[in-house]
């Protein structure tokens, strides 16, 4: 006897039969949620990570370097695990916002160079990241490591001219592949990086077009960053940054201040196109800070960036890493409808939702550990209960706290997540 079709199977069939109709539905659904309105159904966010590699039989090395293998793997994955909206890094990308800053005055590529890819890492040999088949094994997840590349006494120089300091001091220290500024190696490396980026960009454009034909959507996306995270991620390491807040408070604040303008330049390199252009910013230091430090050293500059971009017609899409609960109230200082807040693991998700609903579009709600260690029945029950509490309010996007799932995540669990959204998400 044939197995009974589940909601996900019927949705997949619709993707095959009428991709344009499905895409239009997704477009309206996501847009409405972002605008705090009530869509036809709660949008469900896509997944990624080791699970994609395992399911499609490719390694992290392949996903980072082997463009030929990436295409069929991603297409198969997107087909079999449909979502309303998702981010898949193909090829894999890691944080590289400092490179965007280095070229903030060049809007034609500042937004592209802001992510590190494996092939670009091979040229830079940067110490910020480690890649499969290079520093780590082929089946290991590429990892952002960061590090300390600025000494505490160098804040002054950084503040005087951050972009020049990045080029003249930070890049030579963190990227041995570049050699000495101005040397033949240095010049050749940047040309090679340009050529590599071009190749990756054309691959991505083609892949996105193919995914689009399968009934999927995307919105123009630009990038921003919290100034304090630039310091923590690329210059002083998170622990160093936190000690500096205590030991060199004025310099730390000034350094954040001078970063606002170049960050805005990068973000606005892609113009806002109606109805929706989002600026993505993943936050890192946020959960590590006490409200006192957050309010003094982190939030003011980030807030300025968000407010400026929202006033220009963008919407924010911010990943609040970790437990952001202690700082959630500050989000209410932003104008209503400013954007989408994706929460990783707030201590009490419903409390966060109750505070923000009607003001901020909220994304999240599903503990990643439930998808990893739970059963399809538990996942179904959890999401049913969650959505019964969220609805009838709009402005919600169902997602795990992070979209990366480990390789042992069962297919049945992932299907249960999508099934539950389709079953219980209808308004």
């Amino acid at each position, binding site marked *: 006897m044939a197995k009974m079709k589940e909601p996900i199977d019927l949705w997949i069939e619709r993707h095959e039969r009428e991709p344009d109709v499905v895409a239009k539905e997704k477009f309206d659904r996501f847009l409405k949620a972002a605008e705090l309105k009530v869509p036809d159904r709660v949008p469900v966010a896509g997944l990624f*990570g*080791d699970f994609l590699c395992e399911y499609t039989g490719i390694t992290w090395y392949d996903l980072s370097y082997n463009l030929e293998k990436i295409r069929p793997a991603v297409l198969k994955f997107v087909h079999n695990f449909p979502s309303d909206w998702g981010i898949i890094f193909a090829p894999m990308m890691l944080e590289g916002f400092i490179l965007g800053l280095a070229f903030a005055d060049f809007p034609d590529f500042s937004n592209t160079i802001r992510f590190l890819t494996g092939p670009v890492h091979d040229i830079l040999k940067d110490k910020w990241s*480690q890649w499969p088949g290079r520093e*780590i*094994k082929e089946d*290991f*997840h590429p*990892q952002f*490591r960061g590090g300390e590349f600025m000494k505490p006494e160098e804040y002054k120089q950084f503040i005087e001219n951050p972009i020049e300091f990045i080029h003249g001091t930070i890049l030579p220290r963190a990227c041995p592949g570049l050699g000495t500024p101005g040397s033949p190696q240095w010049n050749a490396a940047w040309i090679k990086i340009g050529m590599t980026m071009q190749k990756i960009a054309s691959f991505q454009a083609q892949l996105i077009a193919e995914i689009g034909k399968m009934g999927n959507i995307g919105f123009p996306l630009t990038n921003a960053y919290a100034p304090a995270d630039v310091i923590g991620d690329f210059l002083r390491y*998170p*622990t160093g940054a*936190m*000690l500096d*807040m*205590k*030991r060199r408070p004025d310099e730390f604040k000034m350094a954040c201040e001078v970063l606002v303008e170049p960050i805005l330049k990068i973000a606005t390199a892609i113009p806002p196109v109606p109805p929706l252009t989002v600026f993505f910013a993943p936050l890192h230091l946020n*959960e*590590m*800070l*006490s*409200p006192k*430090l957050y309010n003094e050293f982190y939030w003011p500059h980030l807030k300025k960036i968000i407010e400026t971009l929202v006033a220009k017609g963008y919407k924010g899409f911010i990943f609040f*890493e*970790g*437990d952001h609960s*202690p700082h959630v109230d500050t989000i209410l200082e932003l104008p209503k409808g400013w954007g989408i807040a994706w929460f*990783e*693991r707030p201590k009490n998700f419903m409390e966060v939702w109750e505070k923000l609903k009607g003001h901020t579009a909220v994304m999240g709600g599903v*503990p*990643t*550990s*439930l998808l*990893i*260690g*739970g059963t399809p029945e538990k996942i179904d029950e959890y999401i049913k209960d969650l959505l019964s509490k969220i609805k009838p309010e709009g402005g919600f996007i169902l997602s795990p*706290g*992070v979209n*990366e*799932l*480990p*390789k*042992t995540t069962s297919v049945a669990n992932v299907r249960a997540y999508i099934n539950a959204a389709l079953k219980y998400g209808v308004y």
Partner: protein
Amino acid sequence: MSLKDLVEAYIDLDEEKVLKIAENLLKSGGDPAEIIEACRSATNIIGEKFERGEYFLSELILAGEIFNSVMRIVLPQLKKEIKPIGIIVLGTVQGDIHDIGKNIFKAFAEAAGFKVIDLGVDVPPEKFVEAIRDYKPDTVGMSCLLTAGIESMKKTVDAIKEASLRDMVKIIIGGGRVDKTTCEYTGADAWTNDAATGVRIILKWAEEKRGR
């Protein structure tokens, strides 16, 4: 300037003041072991403040930093080694190279009086097994940030079981993405999202062991 002042300055995380008091106490013939003990009780109070939500990771990092700075001046003056209250083998599991959480846990565990064998990052299961054989720890601590690390934790617990060492150690896992479900899945004894709570758990284990 007394030990009490030191504890107070420590809890306020006034690094300069703590170091000044410690130096003065040593100069005037103070007992290094007593200074260490004072730092321990202060760290303990900081841990409690963290658990009550008064302090955050930023404060734990600073506390760990202060502890290390004090130890640098006090340890060389110590006449005889203080017996640790327990031994812990610690590492970030295979496939993960993130170490902030592990390092804070290490500082807090040392401040609490444990001897910590730090295996570093990207530690394969067999290294944990080897370290258990070599150091006979009471506790094994595993840390990860990536979701992929959860699988490595499970593999490591399995490897410890296979080596018939599981009954000899208690296992605690820690990291931003671990929780009760992860703990059950990996087969660990306890889990924590933060160093302060983690150290409390291993302190409880050490007490239980002494009581036995």
